[in-house]
């Protein structure tokens, strides 16, 4: 529940911190999963209106707990995933990757990102769970509800891109804060150096 004692400034700090955490998890895990450390993240929220169809395909996962709900999505094209995923599957060229392998790769990326978020929130004594990752057409983004709200649930969204060598994967998140008081500790949370202990979340 929204606690009235939080100032707008404090609220914004918490909201932005959550965005930072999501972006951090997404970037860390794409670097890890693709084995490409040169992926860079760019904030797209002022460039792309929320709800816009961002890719031919999208993979999504729900991160959900008593205090927080995040719908985490990755928007992609087959071509982009082929280029970064074919070495992972031991293929010699991007074209050799099957559609199923593309879907598996992105769904796993969602899973890893969401898992990383679970770890972060667990570190802050927030218990959350994750759903199965799903993959569908990017067109359905049209029906996602991005409308913001501030009471009783604080709801907002964010869009970012992860770029490497003309490859772009877009990420979006709809964040719903159900209990802000449970989240105030995350402001103190500091990101650790690159986490190599990814096996915990596989």
């Amino acid at each position, binding site marked *: 529940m929204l606690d009235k004692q939080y100032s707008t400034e404090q609220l914004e700090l918490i909201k932005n911190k959550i965005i930072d955490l999501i972006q951090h998890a997404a970037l860390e895990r794409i670097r890890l999963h693709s084995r490409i450390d040169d992926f860079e993240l760019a904030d797209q929220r002022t460039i792309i*209106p*929320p*709800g*816009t*169809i961002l*890719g*031919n395909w999208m993979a999504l996962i*729900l991160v*959900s*707990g*008593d205090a927080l709900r995040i719908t985490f999505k990755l928007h992609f*094209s*087959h*071509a982009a995933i082929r280029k970064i995923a074919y070495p992972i599957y031991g293929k010699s060229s991007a074209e050799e990757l099957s559609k199923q392998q593309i879907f598996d790769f992105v769904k796993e990326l969602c899973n890893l990102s969401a898992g990383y978020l679970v770890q972060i929130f667990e570190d802050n004594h927030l*218990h*959350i*769970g*994750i*759903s*199965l990752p*799903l*993959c*569908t*057409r*990017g*067109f359905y983004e*049209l*029906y*996602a*509800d*991005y*409308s913001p709200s501030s009471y009783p649930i604080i709801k907002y969204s964010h869009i970012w891109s992860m770029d490497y060598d003309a490859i772009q994967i877009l990420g979006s998140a709809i964040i719903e804060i159900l209990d802000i008081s449970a989240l105030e500790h995350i402001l103190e949370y500091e990101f650790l150096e690159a986490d190599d202990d990814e096996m915990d979340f596989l």
Partner: protein
Amino acid sequence: MSNINQDIQASHKILTLLEEANLHSEYILDTIPGVFIIINEKFKILRGNIEFSQMFGIPYENILHTDFSSLFDKEIWALFVKHFLILHHDDNKKSVQFELSIQVQKKLGIEKPFYWHLTKMHSGNGAEGNIYTLMGEDISQLRESEKKLLSIFSSIPLGILTINEKGLIEDTYSNYLSCLLGEDDFDNKSFKEIIFDPIREDLTRDERKGIENILLCLNNDIHIFEMMMPSFPNQIFFYKADVDDACLNLKTEIEKGKYLKISYKPVVYEGIVKRLLIIIEDRSTIIRAEKEEAKAKEIKEKSKAIYETAIRDPLTGLYTRLYMEEAVDELLKQCNNDILDQVSLLLFDIDHFKAVNDTYGHDIGDVVLKEVASVILSLVGEEDIPIRFGGEEFLVFIPKEITAGFSLAEKIRTKVENLVINIGEKTIGVTISGGITAYLPYEEVNQFIKRADTLLYQAKENGRNQNIYAL
């Protein structure tokens, strides 16, 4: 594990099923026959199917946010936008359908006709503006079939055309139409002016009303068409008077005219007559042939009447000697050829006819001749040939043996004997005498008559009012 985690885990199965179902429905959309795309109000493509991708040579992955207008030539795009705006600006309209040809492979310049269904969709979260689905059906094959059909139409001797809601000629489907109506350009011309104006003076009041009814039916309920169709002119004599020569030779123009049969078929959309398909048949040859036939029949009947006059004695109604030569000759031939077994001849003469003429005058003599002839006509059969041989002499050729001839002769004689002929306040009676004989094979008709005449003479000699027969 928290309760929420347990719930999420429990939902995994359902989510997997939903994902599977979603993949299947997406596969159906991808493989749907024809072109299927979803566009936003800025004409950016949001979703396309495989056929669209293949048809326009756009890799499936590159479809998203492709500018739909970039796939068309300017002119075609302007037409598409025209239809699009009709739907876009009308809140009550859910969809529009239209036909539009597109270049499916620009480099090769291949253009194909498509029938499009443009439908409004729920706009979702609004980020893409209004959303529309566009389904295009390739109707190349249909058009090819139509072309083949049209080539058949254009070669058959019928004028086929359609008129639109305003009564203007929209399409013509046969080359013969130009030949039929002496007009080369029909496009957007008034059907009424082309067909009926040249013969306006010849049309009846009802036909003129019928022409007005044709126009009334257009863009109106089908029931009005059904009610009014019987009034439409369906048979006209069409000719075009040469303006330069109008007064000089109208007769020639009319000779060059055509008898046209006009059929009207409604093209109905949602109960409203949107067009009329009109079929014009040139029946000139048939009608002229019918007229020639009627004329020939009339001549034949006149000839027959003239012939009848020639072969019938106007006073008695019996055949004349002229007919005898023809008919009796045929009868005797049949006998000679064994087609007939026997032919008999009855020769009658009115007794004391000279005295009748002398006493009562020739007029009364004619009455007597008429009365006796009536008796003969009333008793002879259809195959018998009764002839006024001359004066008061009568012949009857019958295709029977002599006994039948004698029997008939006796009936005639008796009936004449019993005749009561009124002449003013008086009455007179007459008798006849007869000679009856049978035909001898290959005998000349004159010889045949002569033998009967000999027997008649004997009957006269024996006291008259009797018949004598002999072979």
